[in-house]
């Protein structure tokens, strides 16, 4: 059993598991942090961005100044943003049989895999994952395609040139494999390969293994996966949460008794408690708005935003903010808000029961009804008519490199009354803000990451007790900035196996058993013999028939009656030579009693020596040696067959035959 690690990002995993005869890709995350190296794509022409100076080498060489621009001491690539794909060279991706998706954030690389690698298998995911994943992809494609950029920089990627660049460009990995965003056509084609599944549904893969999605509690439709055969069980935990937010709670019990637990997608900010951060978010929002400033919240169109809107729903009246408009701007804003309301069966119990009242499960419906929350596909059109300040704007993309957020950063960045509040933990807020510097606007970082923290992980592992844990290397040591925090790492026994990008792990367990079916008529013919209370044995002669990873013992064909030339010939081909079977022996030989028996039968001068594996009985007079071990007995004598047979019969007296 092997694990091929195609992504080094612990929360955007992409691993391939070879298990029995299947090749299973676990998640398909897309590392978008690469876009932070690019200049933002403004929706409206930005004089500031277009007038940034070109970057030149120390020796004054300016050949890169078209591709690289400098802003407040940082260098950015002036080109269409590109993404860092999972490894494609480590394993032939056309051999992947299935892809299991655990949540909508972990499927963003799907079109790259399904459309460009010769992949012919099936993708499994839950319905909300697919629907919301589609929204995220649609938004991403929309954000990038609506601002076409003629230029595509590639010179800087040359290894010799890259070496000369300042950090972080210099240290960017595998820039040659970075790719531009996929098209909507590719998205549709990729999504068409997905087969929808429900929680706890058992899916047979070629009869060899069974995969089952379990609720992971992190997002609408998010799942962990169980991959099991009859005798082995692998759990794949990715992006799980134990907090009470909108999704169905996490199913922990089903993860018990795993041989291997692959652990990914823990919280990216283990020191920040989501509750505290939500409080911080509300306080800063209220403070800014009360002072007449605007609040910008860069976010994804689905996920934490639902919980934030719910908190604000409860908070705005108490904070006296009910007249402040909240805007949600995204090409998929409408679909996201509406989808969230229709996936009742995937929601937490509390929200499910609301559906029967009947009430919308999320209170943002009421915010929309009362005109407190308004949503628009983009800043163009209706929004510009309705726009009123001070206000709160939720919009993407959290990287601040594309989407409507770029416009608001340019618009509000110059005033210290305004605040940008970062709630998505995927991007470093300082790096995200770098191309906007100098910035007068206040910046608040309250990352809300509801995924498991290390305390919860250690409790989970204690409870489900897997034999082995496999996790990204980042989880096996404290964060580099807080090397003293030994509490911020996975702590389990035996220590977790770690992986990094482009590594292949041999998972530490051997398959020892395989389930075989016996045909009823064959079973009928067996004659079990009880050798110990509760344990019976029987000998079987059968034909082992293996097809589609299922093994069946069938009765051996009867010796054919010699009826005709052709048939006879075939029959003799099929029938193995059935020799007279020797009986099988079982039991052990008690040495003392054996010696007594020997003496009774006239042997004398017997010596017993203990060896590492058993005993040697020396019959000195007869110059014979009987070597008794756990699974064999040898009688060594000089060509005296009569003596040997006599001794053999004495040995057999102590053993059972069947």
């Amino acid at each position, binding site marked *: 059993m092997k694990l091929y690690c195609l992504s080094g990002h612990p929360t955007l995993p992409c691993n391939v598991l070879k298990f029995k005869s299947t090749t299973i890709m676990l998640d398909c995350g897309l590392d978008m942090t690469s876009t932070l190296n690019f200049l933002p794509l403004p929706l409206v022409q930005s004089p500031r961005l277009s007038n940034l100076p070109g970057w030149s080498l120390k020796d004054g060489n300016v050949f890169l100044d078209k591709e690289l621009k400098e802003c407040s001491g940082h260098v950015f690539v002036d080109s269409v943003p590109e993404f860092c794909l999972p490894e494609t060279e480590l394993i032939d991706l056309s051999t992947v049989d299935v892809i299991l998706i655990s949540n909508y954030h972990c499927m963003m690389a799907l079109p790259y895999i399904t459309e460009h690698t010769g992949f012919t298998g099936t993708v499994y995911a839950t319905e909300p994952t697919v629907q919301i994943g589609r929204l995220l992809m649609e938004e991403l494609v929309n954000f990038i395609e609506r601002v076409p950029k003629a230029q595509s920089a590639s010179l800087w990627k040359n290894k010799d040139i890259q070496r000369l660049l300042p950090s972080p460009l210099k240290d960017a990995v595998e820039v040659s494999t970075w790719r531009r965003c996929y098209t909507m056509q590719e998205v549709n084609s990729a999504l068409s390969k997905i087969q929808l599944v429900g929680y706890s549904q058992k899916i047979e893969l070629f009869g060899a293994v069974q995969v089952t999605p379990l609720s992971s509690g992190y997002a609408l439709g998010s799942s962990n996966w169980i991959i099991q055969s009859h005798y082995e069980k692998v759990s794949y935990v990715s992006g799980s949460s134990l907090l009470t937010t909108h999704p169905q709670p996490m199913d922990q019990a089903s993860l018990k008794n795993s041989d291997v637990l692959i652990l990914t997608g823990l919280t990216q900010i283990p*020191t920040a408690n989501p509750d505290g951060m*939500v409080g911080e978010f509300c306080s800063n929002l209220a*403070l800014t708005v*009360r002072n007449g400033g605007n609040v910008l919240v860069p976010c994804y169109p689905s996920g934490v935003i639902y919980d934030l809107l719910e908190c604000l729903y409860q908070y705005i009246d108490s904070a006296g903010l009910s007249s402040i408009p909240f805007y949600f701007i995204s090409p998929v804003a409408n679909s996201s808000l509406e989808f969230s309301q229709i996936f009742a069966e995937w929601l937490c119990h509390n929200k499910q029961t609301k559906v029967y009242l009947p009430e919308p499960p999320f209170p943002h419906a009421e915010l929309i009804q009362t005109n407190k929350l308004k949503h628009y596909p983009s800043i163009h059109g209706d929004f510009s008519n309705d726009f009123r300040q001070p206000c709160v704007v939720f919009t993407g993309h959290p990287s601040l490199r594309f989407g409507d957020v770029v416009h608001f950063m340019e618009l509000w960045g110059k005033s210290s009354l305004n605040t940008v509040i970062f709630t998505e933990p995927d991007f470093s807020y300082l790096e995200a803000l770098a191309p906007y510097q100098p910035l007068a606007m206040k910046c608040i970082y*309250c990352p809300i990451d509801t995924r498991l923290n290390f305390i919860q992980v250690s409790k989970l592992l204690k409870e489900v007790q897997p034999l082995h844990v496999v996790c990204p290397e980042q989880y096996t040591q404290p964060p580099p900035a807080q090397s003293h925090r*030994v509490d911020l790492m996975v702590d389990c026994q035996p220590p977790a196996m770690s992986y990094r990008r482009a590594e292949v792990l041999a998972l530490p367990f051997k398959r020892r058993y395989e389930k075989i079916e016996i045909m009823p008529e064959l079973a009928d013919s067996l004659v079990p013999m009880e050798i110990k209370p509760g344990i019976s044995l029987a000998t079987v002669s059968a034909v082992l028939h293996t097809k589609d990873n299922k093994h069946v013992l069938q009765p051996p064909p009867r010796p054919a009656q010699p009826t005709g030339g052709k048939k006879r010939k075939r029959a003799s081909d099929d029938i193995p030579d059935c020799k007279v079977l020797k009986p099988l022996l079982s039991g052990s030989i008690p040495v003392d009693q054996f010696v007594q028996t020997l003496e009774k039968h006239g042997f004398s001068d017997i010596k017993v020596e203990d060896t590492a594996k058993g005993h040697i009985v020396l019959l000195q007079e007869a110059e014979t040696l009987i070597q008794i071990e756990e699974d064999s007995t040898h009688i060594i004598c000089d060509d005296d067959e009569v003596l040997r047979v006599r001794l053999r019969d004495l040995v057999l007296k102590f053993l059972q035959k069947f």
Partner: protein
Amino acid sequence: MDPECARLLPALCAVLADPRQPVADDTCLEKLLDWFKAVTEAGSSLLLLQENPCLVELLFHVLKPQDLSSRILSFALRLAGTFAAQENCFQYLQGELLPGLFGEHGPLGAAAWAAPTVRSGWIQGLRSLAQHPSALLFLADSGAVDTIFSLQGDPSLFVASAAGQLLVHVLDLAMRGPAKGHGRLQAQDWPACAQRIVCHLEDCLCSEAAPRVTQALHVLTTAFGHCHGLWTQGLWVQLSPLVARLLEKDPMPAPHALVELLLSVARSSVPSSNPGLWETAAQTLSRLSPMQAGPLAAGILKLQDCPQALRTQAFGVLLRPLACVLEATAQAPGTPGLLEGAAGDPMAVDMLPPSKSACVGLLCSTLAHLELLQPLPQRPSPWPQAPLLAAAVTILRFCNGSAAPSSEVGGRLCAMLVGCVRVQRAALDFLGVLSQGLGPRELVTQVFAVLLEYLMSPDSSPTVLKKAFQATLRWLLSSAVPPGCCDLEPRAQLVLRELLAVLQKRLCSPCWEVRDSGLEFLTQMTRRWGGQAGFRQTLLASEVPKLASQLLQDPESYVRASAVAAAGQLSSQGLLAAPSSPEHPAGPQKTPLEELLLVLTTDSEGFPRRAAMRVFTEWLRDGHMAVAEDRERFMARVLQAASGDLDWEVRVQGLELALIFLQQLLGARSPGAAPPGALAQALRALCRVQLFEFAFRSLFDCDRPVAQKSCDLLLFLRAKAAPSSSPQEAGDSPDVAPVEAALQRWRAGEQGQPLGELAPEAVLAVLRSMDLEALRDTLAESSDHVERSPQSLLQDVLAAVGVLGDNEADCY
């Protein structure tokens, strides 16, 4: 005993003796016992029994084998004990009754003994009875002492504990007799009964069974704690070797009980004659685990007299966990160590318990002990203020993950403490207490830094935040230069700016507890520094005053109450900006007085209205500008609102406000009557603000505190209006009839009746005609004073049974 009770007594005894008439209420029996105890303490028990033979009959009746409830049996045992406490009465009952009740042939041998209440009654009866030498003899002869020994291990904890206490009482009684005049006795001269008990205790102390050792230690702890005779010194001489032997055992049995015993002995008169105790204590300190030794060390340090070496050792024990914390971060070499010269022995850094809960428990209890010790005059000197401060700061840094541990132990400590709310609270409390002393400049800077970290951190829980606010306030108070001066020192001034930025955010918190403690903090800060220019400037430059007044509309009533207090305080100091919310940016702006009046008249919850009344009272007392402008109008509006309030506390506050107004008009300080001119003027003012209607109405308020307050107010007024200055004498008598009619109706409960216009003369006349003193006395009685008389008690018991009897009759 009054005749009426004596008349009811036979019926009562008959009821109690009748198993078919169960006494419904257990508390009745307790009250009866209390009453008999009071009666016997006031007079002769013998006489009581002779005059009321039914009582003895009742006791005899109990002796008969029958189906009496265990409660009655227990009652009879305790009652007999109460009577037999007097020696002559004891002799009167001794013949048959007492042996029957307390001897082997009484309940002791019967099935009733299985009920814990009977065993408890038996012990308490003996406890009351054992007051004289005859009782001792009785105890010895009846074999009761052995029973008490066995009851020490009773499954009922109440019974077991009472048995231990009885043993101590008997021991004390036995020793008191011979010890008189003889001073300290040798063990062989002790009375037989005492010797038996001591022997029993010795056996227990030598026992291998931990529960027996614990029992003995508990008995001894009680003995040294409650008995002050010289004999206790002899007892210690006798038993201390056995106690010392316990210390050598591994594991040490009953360490907690042992610590209690040593502290109890140390607080008694024993140490004066037996310095060996200190050695035992020192040995115990070194043998116990840090968690067990903490209470002993803290107890030793609280003693008035104790050898310095032991105090040093105890302080070392107490400081050790904190020293470990400091060690774990390896403070810079310049920082003074906590244990330098204190304990002397090499410190094991890994003494901290390995499990999280034990480690947290140890740190919390250490901090709590030190917190209690800090203000005591006998606290260790020199007090290691600087290292303690450093330790508190370090613990807080461990808890928020910002400390940099220098060793593996430190790393473990960090993992155990990070995010631990319990330790955070204890450390913040301790840090607050440490503000009483000074500290090196850099450390105080660190203190403020860590407090700010906590106040800023989104992860601080509401309770931790509250404590952080409290500690910050204490440190700000202590950093005034020179001490007691109003001005904040420059460093505190810097802190203040950051503090207000934090406060600003906290006042917007979605968690109401946080908004509440933020407002409280603001109120306290403003009260202290509202007059100081630096503070005013910084505060006015922030959004805090505006936010505070916006919180008057908070959905949570506690927050509104705190906002009222804060707005009141800010307004007193002229620091309150006119409130405006983003919803009504250009709306008409209300004055603070209008805002608070609105709260008083419209808020649906009591807390904000009470807070508003407190603010008004303060404003009136301090002469707030908004009040001084038109005091009468202010009073009229507030009193009108308060008088109709449903919350009695608001009405009491209203009367308090009225009293201050009255005092301001008539002069509170000068004793005796007010000058006639001033009085007449004042009375007219009081009539205009309708104070009298409120006060008179309150006299008949269904809530007693309101009536009492009103009574006090009117009495004050009457004293000020001396007869000589009465306007009544000047001319015709005023018409008081309508007033008195209204009062009558109010008294009858018709509170809706208005009083109408009042003439000052009529008020005075009514005031004089009322018996306010009698009313005050009546009100001073608790509301159940009538029902608490013994006669009422007896009637209640009989009535309850009588009702049962009626029902029985109905059945036929």
